[in-house]
């Protein structure tokens, strides 16, 4: 999860979620950052609307609950 947390931290802080950013954050937290995992993360997030993905996550359980008759 550290890599995700780092990405979300950058996103929430209004920063660009890129390799350098994630690496800097992880390093500051004392994590020995794995370059290939960072690359994979950034590649996976390419084209993803993070804000939308997050708000869907918040809404989903409610929908489930409401839908149960």
């Amino acid at each position, binding site marked *: *999860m550290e890599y*995700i947390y780092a990405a*979300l931290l950058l996103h929430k802080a209004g920063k660009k979620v890129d390799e350098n950013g994630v690496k800097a954050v992880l390093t500051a937290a004392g994590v020995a950052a794995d370059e290939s995992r960072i690359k994979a993360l950034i590649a*996976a*997030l390419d084209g*993803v609307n*993070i804000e939308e993905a*997050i708000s*869907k996550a*918040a809404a989903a359980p409610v929908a489930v609950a409401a839908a149960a008759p």
Partner: protein
Amino acid sequence: MAVYTHHLPAWKKDEVADIKKHAKEFTLIGLVDMYGIPAQQVQQIRRNLRGKAVIKVTRNTLIEHALGEIGGDTKGLTRFISGHSAVIFSNDNPFKLYKQLEKTKTKMAAKAGETAPEDIVIEKGPTSFKPGPIVGELQQAGIPAAIEGGKVKIRETKTVVKKGAVISAKLADVLVKLDIKPMDVGLALQAAFHDGSLYEPSVLAVDEEKILAQIQLAGQQAFNLSVNAAIPTRETLAAILTKAVRDARGLAIEADVYEKDVIDAIIGKAHRESQAIKSLVK
């Protein structure tokens, strides 16, 4: 119809006097139609109405005579008198009486030529009949009957007569054999005079479901107003406090105000967000 104003025999005078006496004792005087109600059932209805209403059965001419003597607006009831009218007295209001009378209605077998009060549906399945002419009778009445395993069976569920349609002699006959009693029989209120107004049955049928729904709505509205406008009452203050705290928690969680009471929820929110992103990244 002649109105005897003079020379009434003593028993007739007594009947008229009896109606007038009751009219003074009760706040409501009305007419009910006794048509087609067997004597036994009339007794049952009287018993059920004990303490709530009194029914006086007498000749129409005497009812008319008594209404005439009572005079005033009560006389307006006269035009509702029909062949089998009886007088009803009650201290309930006409809507309550109407409700009471509806409750005393019972189911009875249908006679040929009567109108179905609702769709009459014959359910499919076995009957208790042994094979015999009954199969033909059922079929002639439009009921899909057959013999199966030595028993008479209805092959499929069928509506044999629609609401409002006339029940034929053949159908009436098999309905009796099937022990189906589709007719609602009871006293029908023809009109009532109460507290200076004449009430006809058309206005007396109240939609109670609607009124109950309105009660619920009113309760809900009062609760909403009290809570949303923060008007404290003994009944709603707890809900108002809960709403205030929930709003405060909601604000703290949304705005990331790091307080002990909500830090769990903020962590939870961060966790869910992370899970959402993780599921995208894999």
